């Protein structure tokens, strides 16, 4: 074989190896580039405030893709403090718990405790089921995601009620929506909220599976970029690689610096922020990192209080044992999630041992 032939063959081999690797990843080169470019744009052009655009979603997206500087994180925290102080109450909106939820998520993403911001505990309003429920299913979904993001411990937690509410709101076809109409957007978000609890409750597991079946019946072409984004985050949170067709569908809305809301539309801030964090979620999934909203890698505010005395003590380890022995103790789904210290999807004696070790640390 001539030298030239050998070179050619080697080159071809290398190329095919590379393309083999590339096709196995969730993001194509173009999509990865889009993630970088959009991140650069957001990082350099937005000073996040408290707000549904130009705010928390930018903080979350950039933080979870590692592009948010310490200075920027600090600036955002200062903005939240000022905002909370100006409100004069820990309810950032008198009727919408989602404002609190959104801010809690951003604070978790930057590693800041949402329980003491300018003297306010921003998580406390989420223990009021009536307050959360006023906003409807949206309120319930985001309260669940927010509290779970940093494993936030709340006395008088109503997560169990919220999970029940979410399950009963599921439509017969497996979808969710703001009313009786199916909405891919809301379905995606409901899945994100249920994901952390599905191993601890068969009803939740069944609900998730039903929703996934319904999603399989959707045609990606008909989805808005925001719906695509929510579904991408849902899949990655569930540990499922998103269908490349779904990501491609979202990429159709790509415009310079970000994304549009309609095909052939102009740059739209909301579409850009959602598509950006969806791409970030994909990259995290590829790299085996925590799900987008699982901030336990940067923030964990859990208090392992299982017996309800607001303390961590040997009594809690005993409480787990009594639960295992089915001795007058029942655990709600959120309690099971908290008690599953070894993260093997169930509460077992290994968790008791870990708890004892935890106390001895």
């Amino acid at each position, binding site marked *: 074989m001539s030298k030239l032939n050998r070179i050619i063959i080697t080159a071809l081999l290398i190329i095919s190896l590379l393309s083999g690797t590339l096709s196995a990843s969730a993001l194509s080169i173009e999509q990865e580039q889009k993630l970088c470019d959009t991140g650069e744009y957001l990082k350099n052009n937005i000073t996040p405030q408290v707000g549904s655009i130009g705010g928390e*979603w930018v903080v979350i997206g950039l933080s979870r893709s590692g592009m948010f500087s310490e200075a920027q994180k600090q600036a955002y925290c200062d903005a939240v403090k000022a905002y909370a102080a100006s409100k004069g109450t820990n309810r950032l909106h008198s009727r919408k718990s989602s404002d609190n939820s959104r801010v809690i998520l951003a604070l978790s993403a930057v590693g800041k405790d949402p329980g003491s911001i300018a003297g306010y505990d921003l998580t406390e309003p989420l223990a009021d089921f009536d307050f959360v429920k006023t906003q409807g299913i*949206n309120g319930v979904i985001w309260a669940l995601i927010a509290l779970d993001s940093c494993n936030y411990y709340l006395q008088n937690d109503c997560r169990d009620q919220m999970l029940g509410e979410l399950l009963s709101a599921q439509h017969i076809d497996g979808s969710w929506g703001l*009313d009786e109409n199916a909405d891919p957007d809301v379905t995606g978000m409901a899945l994100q909220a249920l994901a952390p609890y599905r191993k601890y409750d068969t009803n939740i597991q069944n609900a998730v599976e039903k929703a996934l079946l319904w999603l399989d019946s959707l045609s990606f072409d008909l989805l808005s970029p925001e719906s695509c984004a929510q579904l991408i985050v849902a899949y990655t949170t569930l540990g499922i690689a998103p269908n490349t067709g779904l990501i491609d569908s979202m990429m159709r809305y790509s415009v310079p610096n970000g994304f549009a809301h309609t095909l052939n539309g102009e740059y739209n801030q909301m579409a850009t922020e959602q598509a950006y964090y969806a791409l970030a979620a994909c990259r995290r999934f590829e790299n085996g990192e925590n799900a987008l909203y699982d901030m336990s890698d940067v923030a964990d505010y859990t208090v392992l209080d299982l017996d309800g005395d607001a303390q961590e003590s040997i009594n809690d380890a005993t409480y787990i044992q009594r639960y295992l022995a089915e001795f007058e103790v029942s655990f709600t789904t959120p309690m099971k999630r908290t008690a599953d210290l070894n993260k093997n999807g169930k509460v077992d004696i290994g968790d008791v041992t870990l708890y004892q070790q935890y106390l001895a640390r």
Partner: protein
Amino acid sequence: MIKFLNKYKWVITGVILAAVLLVIAFISGGNVEEAKKQAEVTTAAATSDSADTTALTHNKIAEEATQNSTAPTEAASTVETTSLNATESLTATSAVHTAQTTTSAQSSAAVEKPTEKTSAPAAPVPVTKPQEQKPTEEKPTVSAKKRCTISISCATLLNNIDKLKLDDRELVPDDGWILKPTTVFINSNDTVFDVLKRVCKNKKIHMEYSNNPVYNSAYIEGIGNLYEFSAGSNSGWMYRVNGWFPNYGCSQYSLKDGDTIEWMYTCNLGYDIGGSNARGND
């Protein structure tokens, strides 16, 4: 002398008559001017507060930056003040609706008359015409002033009173009208929001709004102390103009002369008022 008068008595009578008619014409012409001035003053008062920044509610609206829930949900969710196609009768209230204009407190009634009438009697006397023309030519602004009709209804709550908290139920007027259709004068670049804000202020109707950058518009949180979510998670305020629900925020709708604005409370994302196609970012 008397002979002179006798000889030309008809001519003299004619001249005197003409003079009397002139005087009458002149005097009533002066009245038209005054009436118009009157109208201008009242309309100026009604529409003067465009520069006014006093908050309508206890909220510090200038600093208000509350947003509309979280972004993803906005893509599909919250009830916006925007809406779509109408016809939907306000059913029982439509009868009340038509009875309306008489009760409108605005100066419209006072104003309308002068624009129609400049003194007619002077018609047969050509000399008077230029003077007649003058009042209308000097004051073109009154007849060119834009008007619109605005109403605020929470009629959908009449059949859904149980969705409200006990304390809120007394907020619902018996006929569902928080503001019956009222004709107001508007400035040339007024938006639906401008008119709502002004009318609520003048009529001392509670109105609360926040600034929503997602829609680049004010977002109406509550009117008459009835808020978004007061009657469940799918309830809130929407508006339509000339029977059509615009699919964007009320600060973005610029009004034309004769437009009819209707603010309506929905209990289920607009379906009950025919506006289900305008739910914001869909």
